[in-house]
């Protein structure tokens, strides 16, 4: 007699494949000749290419399995619906682009080692699990798997004190957040007797609008705090600027998109799924977090001189906008978040690709003033960065505008006018610092030009994301309709 029923592995095939691929690549890397720098670089290049192939194959797997329709496995702990597929595709694209744009930098900094790609793959496995988590335990497993890999890549530049500091800071604060999340989960389990999202949802539906026990609310608040840390929302944002500044730039690029996408997905699933009936309990918290993030992101970024720090505050602000959609708490809101995050992904990768191109005499520079006169020395890169900056500040007809449009539409529809007005005014403030970058590139005289040579990979990513952001308005429909069906699947379709 079998001890337990053998679960269906098919819904989890992408995760299983990617985990195996990561371990396989680890083996491949380990058994490469380990001699001088050239050989290490060669190995890292090969693993990076193979890692990209693995991600593409996973992407294909995800879309193939998605055709079979929604499914559950592992006793309901793992769920695959349109919502999960949508975010998995985004996360895989983000990880793939992060691997592509990293290689050049790693080689120039002489830290090109094959472990980078392997760690990215492992983190991606964790993120895919987070997105599909349908149980508090599965959630925690995915989250930790992702975080452990991220702590290591944050300090990937071992000889650099900043990078080590970033890794340590991220680890200490991240562990604290994980602890809070776990504590919150245990409280929720204690008061409801289950960890399954569906069972939790049923329990709360049976409350019929009565106020839940205080201990349970405390548990939810702890879970919220842990998740807010992962998406770097105010007031749990303190780690963001330091980690963004200290970590190697490609790692920062990765941090600013993939984990954030996964965490937002998790945030939405937890809040809307099991705690969906308790909207009244958590809505005000999310509204507060959202407003605080938008306002802090807008005002704190104004004085920044380091472009990576600026992007950290910018990403805090963007999370604030995405959380408006969650605060709305209905299908339209979630749809808005999905569209917003899709556009955010491409804008952010684009900006970081530009940052990776900021090199002067083979040395990386990260000061905003180093961009002075870029429009003369490197018009194409200046144009791309200008497009991203205008898009981030939400000026039509660029993609960023559409992201904001649907978020605010959802907010207005459910009568959250205050939130919408604050958000829009914060976006005007934020426009100031985005414009400042355009101003430095276009209006100021060049001091010492940035190197013109840009690697082929970086140029491709920059052009690709730039064109996507600039021309999104031509064919918005595919993103809109898949976001709509993903949001619908979360609300029981």
């Amino acid at each position: 007699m079998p001890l337990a029923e053998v679960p269906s592995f098919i819904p989890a095939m992408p995760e299983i494949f990617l985990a195996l691929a990561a371990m396989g690549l680890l083996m491949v890397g380990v058994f490469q000749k380990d001699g001088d720098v050239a050989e290490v670089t060669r190995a890292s290049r090969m693993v990076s290419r193979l890692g990209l192939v693995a991600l593409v194959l996973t992407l294909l797997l995800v879309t193939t399995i998605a055709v079979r329709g929604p499914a559950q496995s592992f006793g309901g702990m793992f769920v695959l619906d349109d919502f999960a597929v949508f975010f998995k595709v985004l996360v895989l694209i983000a990880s793939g682009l992060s691997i592509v744009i990293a290689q050049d930098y790693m080689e120039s900094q002489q830290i090109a080692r094959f472990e980078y790609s392997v760690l990215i793959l492992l983190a991606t496995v964790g993120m895919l699990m987070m997105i599909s988590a349908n149980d508090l335990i599965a959630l925690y497993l995915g989250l930790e798997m992702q975080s452990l890999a991220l702590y290591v890549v944050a300090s990937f530049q071992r000889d650099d004190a900043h990078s080590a500091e970033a890794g340590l800071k991220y680890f200490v604060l991240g562990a604290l957040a994980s602890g809070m999340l776990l504590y919150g989960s245990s409280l929720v389990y204690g008061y409801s007797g289950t960890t399954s999202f569906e069972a939790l949802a049923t329990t709360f539906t049976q409350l019929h609008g009565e106020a839940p026990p205080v201990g349970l609310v405390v548990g939810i608040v702890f879970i919220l705090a842990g998740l807010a840390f992962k998406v770097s929302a105010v007031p749990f944002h303190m780690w963001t600027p330091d980690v963004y500044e200290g970590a190697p730039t490609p790692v920062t690029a990765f941090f600013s998109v993939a984990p954030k996408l996964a965490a937002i997905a998790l945030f939405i699933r937890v809040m809307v799924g099991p705690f969906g009936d308790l909207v009244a309990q958590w809505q005000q918290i999310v509204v507060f977090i959202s407003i605080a993030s938008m306002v802090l992101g807008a005002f704190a970024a104004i004085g920044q001189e380091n472009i990576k720090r600026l992007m950290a505050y910018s990403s805090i602000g963007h999370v604030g906008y995405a959380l408006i959609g969650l605060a709305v708490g209905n299908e339209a809101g979630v749809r808005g978040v999905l569209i917003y995050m899709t556009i955010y992904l491409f804008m952010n990768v684009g900006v970081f690709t530009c940052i990776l191109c900021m090199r002067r005499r083979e040395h990386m520079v990260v000061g905003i003033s180093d961009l002075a006169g870029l429009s003369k020395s490197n018009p194409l890169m200046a144009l791309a960065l200008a497009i991203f900056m205008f898009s981030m500040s939400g000026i039509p007809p660029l993609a960023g505008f559409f992201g904001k449009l649907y978020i605010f539409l959802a907010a207005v529809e459910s009568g959250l006018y205050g939130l919408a007005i604050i958000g829009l005014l914060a976006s005007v403030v934020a426009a100031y610092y985005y414009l400042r970058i355009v101003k430095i590139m276009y209006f100021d005289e060049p001091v010492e030009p940035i190197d013109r040579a840009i690697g082929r990979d970086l140029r491709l990513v920059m052009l690709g994301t730039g064109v996507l952001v600039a021309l999104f308005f031509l064919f918005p429909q595919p993103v809109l309709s898949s976001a709509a069906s993903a949001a619908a699947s979360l609300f029981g379709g």
Partner: protein
Amino acid sequence: MSHLPLLSLITFLPLVGAVFILTIRGEPDVVARNARNVALLTSVTTFLLSLGVWFNFDTSTSAFQFQERAEWMPTFDIAYHLGVDGISMLFVLLSTLLTPICVLASWESITERVKEYMIAFLVMETMMVGMFCALDLVVFYIFFEGVLIPMFLIIGVWGGGRRVYSAFKFFLYTLAGSVLMLLAILTMYFTTGTTDIPALLNYDFPTGLQTWLWLAFLASFAVKVPMWPVHTWLPDAHVDAPTAGSVILAGVLLKFGGYGFLRFSLPMFPEASIEFTPLIYSLSIIAVIYTSLVALAQEDMKKLIAYSSVAHMGFVTVGTFTMTVQGIEGAIYQMLSHGVVSAALFLIVGVVYDRLHSREIATYGGLVHRMPAYSLAFMIFMLASVGLPGTSGFVGEFLVLVGAFQANTWVAALTATGVILGAVYMLYLYRRVIFGALTKDSLKRIRDLSPREIAVFAPLVVLVFWMGLYPAPFLEVMHVSVSNLLERVETARASMETAVVLGR
């Protein structure tokens, strides 16, 4: 011509030209020459195409013509929808006329980054034309806001003086106003379930909601017009923008606000418009009198003309809110006339600025002795700006005042002082720059208008006289649409009065 998507062609042809210029490679001066030629060719072709709209325009209907509709975001039921009526059609022509003139006016004065400059102007033309043609709120908003990007770059890159400060001020002022309008647009969308402008024109919003929507739209349009007290970005932007930038700013961008009142505020929120008429009157009268006095004290020619623009746009807002046929037609006419005249005046300043690189009035004096043709052109536009009978300015101001008299005598009387003050500051400017003895050494070798400059001014001079002497073709175009607009306002007024009588 109904099968040809004429409006889309006019809207996006400049963009095609811009993309083409982007691909030009080679030696810097070859690139510059080609960029200029392509820009001129594209904008002239666009203008000729837009004449096609005028010739085929049916003046007997108030319905939207040349309509084009395509699915765009079916998930949200937002469509790409273009069309023109009697109110918007002439503004399309104004935009397509001024762009080639701007290109021509910048022929020699812009020598740096010519390629980017021409791209910015062509992109701007697309945005302007699209804005006037849009029949969907979201499409409208995109074009309305999209103008900011090229204009920001034009002021910041090719401007002078405090160009960075002015560019930021222009951008942030306008953006702050428009985000509130965006909020209103979203509210309208979820109230009615559509963003289609013709459909919204027939929708009656509840009175309470109208007030809020009207105020949100005001926030955006008042900045654009600009109305006192949010006009302060305009003098800065004008002074620091390059000549052609000022021309577009004064000629077309300011009209966005006036057009917005006519397209949205009046027909969609008629009750709120009636309610807020005293507010608009007060702000406009302050604008007319106060900015005229400020203009009188200016030492900088561009700044003087910028303040005069605020005063002239005060006439437009008064005329719009008189809600009479004469007033509204006068407002539209005044906008068109101001589009031509103020554009021409900025070009006039540009001519001497190109030669001496100074906009100070004190730098000049006695120009008539060396530049007779220039003085003549200056005089024509100066008198048109003052509103001398026989010039375009007269028709607009006269109609506005006639409309104002019907609505409120005091408003008419106070607005009329603007005409006198306008004559004072313009004649004073003209005297100081043109007349007197030519004593300054720097002026002794100044050249008169070149053939290229004459080619720039000639069409504008013709227009000033045509619009002044024979306004019928222009008024005919707008008449039916304006009457239709007024009918809607009157219905609202009637229902408001019934409500008052019934004590509701």
